[in-house]
């Protein structure tokens, strides 16, 4: 099993390595200036020499991303349950939820930064806002998707509202929620980066996006790219984290997590 996984990963790894070599060769051969693009070796060097600064930025962005995902999850779930439990709340609020969802969050971020005095809170609000809606809309759909015969069965046994929520609708919604959760994991990082860009140097303990801006001003291009690499690393990490959590929740029963023997 392990060996087979290695085999499937091998082409991608080789391709990556080849690209890096080509990139380095190209930069060296044509003497490309670092303000156009630094070579991988220069970026790696920056990663090592600027590590103390970059590491604290990495931590800041990571923390922001994880908090945003956490709040988006809690908020999205709570809102979805409220919508599905109360027709009144749904009719009153859902149109506005849609309007907020279709409004590009990048356009709202500066307002949040202006309105909220505490920068840390403003950043988290911004990033949460971006990550919130996939969870909300996926979960709302899931909560409404219970099998209608099972719903009748619950009715037959006179299930209380909370019972059909806990024993039927929430488990039905779980795979829907998790696919929203995986999308939100990526979006939380997008939100975090956008928020940091907009906040700029306003924040202390600034994150990777601020490093990018800062390195740009100082013409430290290898460091700029190093920060970019670290953002990708967080993105990949979020992807694996959310996929793994999703797998853990569904492995016993859901089609998407089952391995079929052939």
């Amino acid at each position, binding site marked *: 099993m392990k060996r087979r996984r290695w085999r499937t990963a091998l082409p991608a790894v080789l391709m990556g390595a080849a690209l890096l070599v080509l990139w380095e060769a190209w930069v060296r051969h044509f003497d490309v200036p670092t303000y156009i693009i630094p070579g991988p070796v220069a970026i790696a060097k920056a990663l090592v020499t600027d590590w103390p600064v970059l590491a604290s930025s990495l931590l800041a962005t990571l923390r922001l991303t994880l908090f945003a995902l956490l709040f988006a999850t809690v908020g999205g779930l709570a809102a979805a349950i409220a919508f599905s439990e109360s027709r009144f709340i749904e009719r009153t609020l859902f149109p506005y939820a849609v309007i907020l969802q279709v409004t590009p969050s990048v356009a709202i971020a500066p307002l949040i930064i202006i309105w909220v005095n505490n920068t840390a809170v403003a950043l988290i609000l911004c990033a949460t806002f971006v990550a919130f809606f996939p969870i909300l809309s996926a979960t709302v759909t899931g909560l409404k998707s219970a099998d209608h015969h099972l719903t009748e069965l619950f009715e*037959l046994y006179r299930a209380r509202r909370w019972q059909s929520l806990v024993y039927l609708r929430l488990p039905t919604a779980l795979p829907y929620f998790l696919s929203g959760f995986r999308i939100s994991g990526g979006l939380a990082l997008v939100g975090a980066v956008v928020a940091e860009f907009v906040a700029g140097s306003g924040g202390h303990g600034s994150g990777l996006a601020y490093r990018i801006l800062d390195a740009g001003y100082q013409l430290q291009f290898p460091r700029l790219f190093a920060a970019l690499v670290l953002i990708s690393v967080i993105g990949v990490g979020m992807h694996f984290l959310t996929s793994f959590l999703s797998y853990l929740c569904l492995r016993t029963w859901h089609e998407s997590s089952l391995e079929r023997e052939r």
Partner: protein
Amino acid sequence: MTSGVFASIRDLGKHFADGTVALQGLNLTIPLGGFVSLLGPSGCGKSTLLRILAGLTRPSSGSIEFPHGESHAARGNPPGVGFVFQEPTLMPWASVMHNVALPLRLSRTPKDQAADMVRTALASVGLSDFAHAYPRQLSGGMKMRVSIARAIVTRPTFLLLDEPFAALDELTRLNLNNDLLELWSRERFTTVFVTHSVSEAVYLSQQVFVMAPRPGRVTGDYSIDIPPAQRTAEVRTSILFNDYLRTIAHRLREGAAS
């Protein structure tokens, strides 16, 4: 063997908001502890009748009485009812054991008592070894057994089955027919079985009601006088059995043609 009336249905009608008349002027008496089949083509309202009996839908007119002190309460369901749908209708996220335990969990039966009842129900459908399996690991016939175990776990007085074996292959279906008969002989819950298979209805039931569509009504009422002990594979080829088949199939065709 059966004495008394479990339910008596008088002049029952059901029409839907779109104007469809599902049932009209339907009269039916279900004997206490009896096994009754509702037989008819699709669209004759037999499933609707079953859902009304279960309390899942309200009739538009007419009445249902449960003379044995079990009145059809305003919004309630008849007490102690078990229902088996055409599909197994299991919760894919729950093990067999937890699926069967669902009715007990909803009525908040104490845990150890519930565990005993689940064990008994699983044993009576022959699935004791699969308590911890998940529905996706089971065959269609086994899933249906789980569904039946769930319906009988509360030891209901009234069991309703809506074409439960229609989607299964012939062999599984015959086996489940025998199991259901055995279960009924042991427990004697009043059973209403909806089917569109004449031989299944005759093989299982003490009484077969033939229904016709547009509007749904009862057009025939046949007592099947074959003792439970004689209902084995051989009876299917007997003259008596085939006489029943012929008569009932004839009635079924007449109803469909009219």
